[in-house]
C-alpha cells in the first residue's frame, strides 16, 4: 500500500508539472476592456455575448464593464472623458452616435477605414444602407453600428378597428385626424415623446434642416421647424394628444401605451422589447411626414468605437471582437432579443431572420424604415445644439412660448455654440 501511495504521489506531481509547463507555454490571452452602457436585461444580453466570444476565442479575453447609461451626455461619456484625461482608456466602447465627432475631434477614437476595408464582412457596404450614417466625421469612419434604432409610430390595432380606421397614418395631418377619432374618455389619440431626437424627425418630415451644410449656423428656427411642434401643441390643446415631461417621460409614454391610455405613440424601435409584453395586438409603422414631403428619419443608439490610445495588440483583438459581434448569428440573436436593428445586410437575407420577421412583422418595420435614414449633422458641437433644441421643446409644450419664438431663441444660442470655438 505504502509503495503504491508513493507511486501515485510521484505520478500526480509529474502530471502537475506537465500541466503547469503547458499552461506556461500557451501565451496569455490578449485582454480587451469593453465599456457598454445598457442596464437590466440588456446588460445580461451583452454579458451573454461576451461570454460566448471568450468561450470561442481562447487567445482573447474580453472583460465587459457597465459604465452607466450610454445616452447623450450620460455617465458613460463622463467616465470615458475621465479615462482619456487620465491616459488609461478602455479598448472598445459603446458610444452614442451623436458623440462620435466630439470624441473624434479630440483625437480619442481610432480611424477604422483601413481595417473595415480589409474586413471579410464589416466593410461599409456590408452594413444595411442607412446604418452607416453618424458613424464618422467627413470621410473618416470611427464607429461600427452596434445597437441602433429609428423612430417608430406605434398603434393599438383594436382601438383602430373600433374607430373604423383601416391602417396607421402616413402623414401628420392624417395622424391628427385619426387621433381625434381615437380619443375617448380615459384614452388620448396620440402621445409623442417630447425629446430632441423626435424634433429632428419632425423638422425633417416638414422639409427642414437642423444646421446649414457647413454646420456653422442653426437652420431649424423656421416654418418647417415650427410646424411639427405647432401641430403637437394644437393637438394637446384639443385634448386629443398628451405629452409627458420630466425625468421619466419616455417610460411613462410607453407605459400609457401598454396600459391602453393612448392609441398611438411616437417612440423608438428599441422600445419593441417592452411593447412585446403588451396584452393586446399592436402595430409598428413608419414615422409620418407632412403631406408632400419625403420621409427622412434620424437614427439613434450607439456605435462600437475603438480607443486610439489603447495598445495596438488590444485594438486588434477588439477589432476581432467587434467583427464577431456584428456577424450574422450574433446580430440576429441581439436583434431578436432587444429590438435593436440587425446591422448586416447578410443577416437580413438569412433564413433565421426571415423566419423571425415572418413571425414578428413589427420587427421588420424599422429595418425597412432605414432606407429613409438621414445623417444628423456630424458637428463636434451638436450636443449643445440639441440641448438648446430640447430647452425650446420644453418651453413650447409647456405653452410658455410659441414654437417660433422658442426655436428662434434656441437658434441664437446654438449659433453661439457653433461659432464660439
Amino acid at each position, binding site marked *: 500500500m505504502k509503495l503504491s501511495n508513493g507511486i501515485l504521489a510521484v505520478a500526480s506531481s509529474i502530471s502537475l508539472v506537465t500541466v503547469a509547463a503547458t499552461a506556461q507555454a500557451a501565451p496569455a490571452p490578449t485582454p480587451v476592456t469593453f465599456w457598454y452602457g445598457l442596464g437590466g436585461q440588456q446588460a445580461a444580453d451583452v454579458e451573454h455575448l461576451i461570454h460566448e466570444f471568450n468561450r470561442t476565442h481562447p487567445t482573447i479575453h474580453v472583460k465587459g464593464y457597465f459604465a452607466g447609461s450610454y445616452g447623450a451626455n450620460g455617465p458613460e461619456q463622463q467616465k470615458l472623458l475621465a479615462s482619456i484625461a487620465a491616459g488609461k482608456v478602455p479598448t472598445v466602447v459603446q458610444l452614442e452616435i451623436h458623440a462620435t465627432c466630439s470624441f473624434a475631434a479630440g483625437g480619442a477614437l481610432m480611424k477604422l477605414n483601413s481595417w473595415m476595408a480589409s474586413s471579410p464582412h464589416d466593410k461599409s457596404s456590408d452594413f444595411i444602407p442607412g446604418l452607416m450614417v453618424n458613424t464618422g466625421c467627413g470621410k473618416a469612419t470611427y464607429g461600427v453600428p452596434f445597437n441602433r434604432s429609428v423612430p417608430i409610430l406605434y398603434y393599438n390595432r383594436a382601438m383602430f378597428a373600433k374607430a373604423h380606421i383601416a391602417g396607421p397614418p402616413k402623414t401628420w395631418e392624417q395622424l391628427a385626424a385619426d387621433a381625434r377619432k381615437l380619443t375617448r374618455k380615459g384614452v388620448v389619440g396620440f402621445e409623442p415623446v417630447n425629446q430632441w431626437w423626435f424634433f429632428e424627425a419632425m423638422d425633417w418630415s416638414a422639409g427642414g434642416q437642423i444646421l446649414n451644410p457647413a454646420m456653422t449656423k442653426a437652420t431649424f428656427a423656421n416654418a418647417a421647424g415650427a410646424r411639427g411642434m405647432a401641430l403637437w401643441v394644437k393637438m394637446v390643446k384639443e385634448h386629443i394628444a398628451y405629452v409627458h415631461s420630466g425625468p421619466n417621460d419616455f417610460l411613462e409614454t410607453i407605459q400609457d401605451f401598454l396600459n391602453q391610455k393612448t392609441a398611438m405613440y411616437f417612440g423608438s424601435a428599441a422600445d419593441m422589447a417592452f411593447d412585446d409584453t403588451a396584452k393586446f395586438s399592436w402595430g409598428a409603422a413608419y414615422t409620418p411626414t407632412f403631406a408632400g414631403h419625403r420621409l427622412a428619419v434620424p437614427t439613434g443608439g450607439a456605435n462600437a468605437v475603438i480607443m486610439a490610445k489603447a495598445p495596438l495588440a488590444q485594438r486588434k483583438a477588439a477589432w476581432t471582437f467587434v467583427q464577431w459581434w456584428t456577424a450574422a448569428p450574433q446580430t440576429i440573436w441581439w436583434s431578436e432579443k432587444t429590438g435593436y436593428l440587425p446591422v448586416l445586410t447578410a443577416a437580413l437575407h438569412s433564413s433565421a431572420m426571415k423566419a423571425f420577421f415572418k413571425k414578428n412583422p413589427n420587427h421588420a418595420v424599422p429595418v425597412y424604415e432605414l432606407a429613409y435614414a438621414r445623417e444628423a449633422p456630424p458637428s463636434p458641437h451638436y450636443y449643445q445644439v440639441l440641448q438648446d433644441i430640447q*430647452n425650446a421643446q420644453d418651453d413650447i409644450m409647456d405653452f410658455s412660448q410659441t414654437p417660433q419664438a422658442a426655436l428662434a431663441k434656441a437658434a441664437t444660442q446654438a449659433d453661439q455654440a457653433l461659432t464660439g470655438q
Partner: protein
Amino acid sequence: MVHPAPALARVTRRSGRSADARAGWLMLAPTLAVLLSFVIGPLVLGMGLSFTHYNLMSGQAQFAGVSNYRDLFAGGSTFWTALLNTVLFTLGTVVPTITLAVFFGILLNQQLIGRTFYRTVLFAPYVTPLVGASIAWIWLFRRQGFVDWVMQLFGVTGPGWLSSPHTALIAIIIATLWQYTGYFTMLVLSGLQAIPPDVTEAARIDGAHGLSLLRQVVLPLLSPTILFCLILSVIQSFQVFDQIYVMTDGGPGTSTLTLVYYLYQLGFEFFHFGHGAAVGVVLLAVLLTFTALQLKLSSRWVHYDL
C-alpha cells in the same frame, strides 16, 4: 513644575523657535498638501483655463483672451438664466432655512420630553446621502405621487411638480430645505447653548420674559451664529448641484439650470472646458462679493457682546 534657568532659555530660544517652526510645518504638511493639490492648485488652474479653449481629450489649450467671458455675458446667453435661477434658489432656501433653524433651535433648547429624539429626527436628513434622498424626492413629486395625493386630499390637483417649469425649482427648494434645516438647527442650538446662563438669568430678574427676552437678549447674542449660518448657506445654495443632477438635469427647459450645473454642462457634457472654467471664476467672484458684503453689513446687526 520645572522651569529652565533664564540663561539657558535665552540660549535655546532661537534654535527652539526654528525647531518649533519645523515641527509646525511638518504637522501642517499633510493638510497643506491636500489643500494645494485639491483646492488651491485647481483654483489657479481653473482661472488659467478660463482664458483658453481647452480640449481635455487632446490636452491642448489655446489662448482665447477674454472670449469665454464675452460669450458668457453676451445677450441671450444661457448664463443669465442660470444666474437668475441660482439667485432665486438661494433666496428660496436661505431665508426659510435660517428662519426654521432659529425656530427649531429655540424650541429644542427648551426642556421638552423626548428632546433627543426630536433632535435626531431633525438632523437625520443631513446625514442621508443627497443622491439617494433626491431619488426618493422624485418618487414623492412624481405625477400622482405622494405629494399629489396629499394635495388631492385638499381638493387641489398637483401641477406635475418636476415636469412643470413653474414648479420644478420649488420642488428642488423643498427637498433642499428638508436636507439642510436640521444641520443649521444644530448650529443654532450650539449657539444658544453658548449664551451664558447668567446673562439670561439677569435679564429675567430685570423683568424680561418670552418675546422680549428673545428679541433683546437671545437673538442679539445668537447673531454671530446666524451670520455664520447665513454665509454658509448662501455659499451652499450657490453651489447646488446634486439635487438638480438627479432630479431634473436642469430642466424642464432651463427652469432649474443653476450656475454649477451650467458649469458642469459646458465642461463635461459639451466639452467646452474654457467656458466652464469661466463660469467657475464668475461664481467665485459672486460668492466673494456676497460674503464680503455680508460681513460688512453684519456690523449693523451682529453683536459679539451685549
